[in-house]
């Protein structure tokens, strides 16, 4: 059954505009309106998901087909990612239902929903300027999210994160806009597929400049190596849900935009393979940097933040290998990260919720005894993040290593091994702390909603880990989209 994918954007917008009215007339209801919006998105996505097995789902807006109007092209890659994003957002929002009153819950929920909407819009839109608009929706919601401190946290770090992100994100978006102006000037069109069609006739220098701006702008959004100084600041000062959103939703949308613009649009206009090489080594450097920084950090929020940066690098590197197995591995890693990271953030937020300021590693001590369910869920999350079989990350790393091996990229393989060792180091430390029962710790019950969501994501990890088969059909399309621009062009020109 097909539903117009534009509803993925419209439903949350209706919900967002309903929030002020509701908070006037029915104050108690206002903070759950965003949840309803997200559920609406999830329903639309679920109805459309089946169609992704046959290729992209498209729609037009404004009464004119592409390239004149704005078209929506939900490629299987975009659809898969959007599903994951909606899942992460639902995870974040539902986990907070525990009967406790939290300050600023309405704004927080609205911003969670809007960040997700922007991210989903970025991955499904077929128009490059529309992508910029959604990028901005995401970034602005991100600033507000970063400014909302976690409960009882009083150090002003949230403001630091918000200010830095607002500044850096602003620069990023305006560089992206400059790149869009360049591409429009060169090709007289804004539709992604049409730009991809015409890019080969454009002067190489112009394409190179466009790549420079797009790389800086979207690289900032997806936390790539020299451009990610803002990220730890944001992770450090905000709520655990904000951390999950930045690593699971906002950054992922930037990542897909970067990949699509680089591989589908700009790569044909440049020297063969140069874009891929640049991204490959930037990704590898990001991975190494992120994992090393995570290994040496002591605040748990930053450990997880740096670890997300590392994973972003790993993803970019694996997609940039340019072979089918690399993309297959990248998709699996992406799913694995989207499932495992929110679990870790959520359980860490639970274990360290009484701390003011930074949350040291030791706050996990004895978690397995004080709250066995939280301990077990977190252990599974950690193991899934390292890549214990059967988890999506295991398959991802397996495919990635085999792809790198068959390409003869020995330097990359050694970087991957070093990074994985760092990863095992800090995740292992977390595990030891969880099972360290020497210190007495008061019993602590995990709130029901949080437990259920954690268990659900654990279930998904096992599901994909044991049965990666059904995803293979979608991954074929992902490979098709990223390897050959002609596929995207033919999907776009409806």
């Amino acid at each position, binding site marked *: 059954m097909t539903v117009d994918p534009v509803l993925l954007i419209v439903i949350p917008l209706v919900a967002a505009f309903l929030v002020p009215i509701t908070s006037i007339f029915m104050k108690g209801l206002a903070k759950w309106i965003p949840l309803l919006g997200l559920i609406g998105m999830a329903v639309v996505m679920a109805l459309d998901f089946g169609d992704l097995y046959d290729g992209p789902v498209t729609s037009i807006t404004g009464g004119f087909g592409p390239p004149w109007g704005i078209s929506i092209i939900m490629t299987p890659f975009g659809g898969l990612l959007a599903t994951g994003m909606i899942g992460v957002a639902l995870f974040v929002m539902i986990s907070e239902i525990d009967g406790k009153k939290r300050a600023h819950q309405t704004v927080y929920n609205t911003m969670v929903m809007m960040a997700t909407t922007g991210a989903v819009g970025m991955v499904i839109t077929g128009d490059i*300027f529309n992508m910029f608009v959604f990028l901005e929706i995401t970034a602005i919601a991100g600033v*507000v999210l970063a*400014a909302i401190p976690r409960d009882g946290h009083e150090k002003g770090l949230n403001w630091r994160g918000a*200010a830095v992100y*607002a*500044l850096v994100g602003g*620069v990023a978006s305006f560089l992206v806009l400059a790149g869009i*102006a360049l591409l429009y000037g060169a090709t007289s069109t804004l539709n992604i597929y049409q730009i991809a069609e015409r890019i080969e006739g454009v002067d190489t220098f112009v394409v190179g400049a466009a790549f420079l701006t797009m790389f800086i702008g979207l690289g900032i959004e997806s936390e790539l190596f020299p451009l990610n100084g803002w990220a730890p600041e944001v992770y450090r000062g905000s709520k655990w849900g904000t951390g999950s959103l930045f690593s699971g939703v906002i950054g992922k949308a930037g990542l897909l935009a970067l990949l699509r613009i680089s591989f589908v649009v700009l790569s044909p206009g440049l020297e063969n393979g140069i874009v891929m090489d640049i991204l490959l080594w930037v990704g590898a450097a990001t991975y190494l940097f992120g994992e090393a920084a995570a290994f040496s950090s002591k605040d748990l929020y930053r450990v997880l933040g740096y670890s997300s940066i590392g994973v972003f690098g790993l993803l970019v590197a694996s997609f940039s290998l340019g072979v089918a197995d690399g993309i297959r591995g990248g998709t699996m890693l992406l799913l694995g990260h989207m499932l495992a990271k929110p679990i870790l953030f959520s359980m860490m937020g639970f274990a360290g919720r009484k701390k003011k300021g930074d949350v*040291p590693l030791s706050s996990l001590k004895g978690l397995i005894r004080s709250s066995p369910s939280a301990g077990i869920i977190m252990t599974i999350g950690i193991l899934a993040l390292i890549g214990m079989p059967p988890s999506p990350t295991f398959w991802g790393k397996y495919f990635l290593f085999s792809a790198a091996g068959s390409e003869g990229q020995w330097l990359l393989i050694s970087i991957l091994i070093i990074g994985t060792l760092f990863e095992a180091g800090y995740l292992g430390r977390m595990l030891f702390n969880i099972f360290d029962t020497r210190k007495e710790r008061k019993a602590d019950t995990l709130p029901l909603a949080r437990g259920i969501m954690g268990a659900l994501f654990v279930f998904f990890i096992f599901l994909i880990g044991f049965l990666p088969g059904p995803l293979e059909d979608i991954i074929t399309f992902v490979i098709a989209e990223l390897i050959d621009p002609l596929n995207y062009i033919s999907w776009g020109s409806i």
Partner: protein
Amino acid sequence: MNGYEWIFYGGIMALMAVGIWAILSRRNLIKAIMGLVIIETAVNLLLVAVGYVNDRSAPIVNGDTGLGDSPVGEVVDPLPQALVLTAIVIGLATTALALVAAVGYFRSTGTLELKSFTYGRTDETEVKE
């Protein structure tokens, strides 16, 4: 084409360079936000400049302009002007949020300097094991 058209882009890019330089070299939040606004202005100008066509009028066919219903060859490109409208609104939103965040930073730390905004130098010592 008289050969001096590069001067438009030259001016815009000088603005852009000033903005980027301000953001990279200033640790003061307010000055950095000024840099952001300068970049924003430069990019807006850039969009309008991309759509300009020599010796053409504004894309409005009614009344004073005396253009027909289908003014092909007589008006400039309307698309970048529509984009600039969006870009201005977005710039406003970004600036407003950045300023409020700067106020929050100032009130909670007593300073506007982002001193240790560099890798690994953020005060790790505060973490007590």
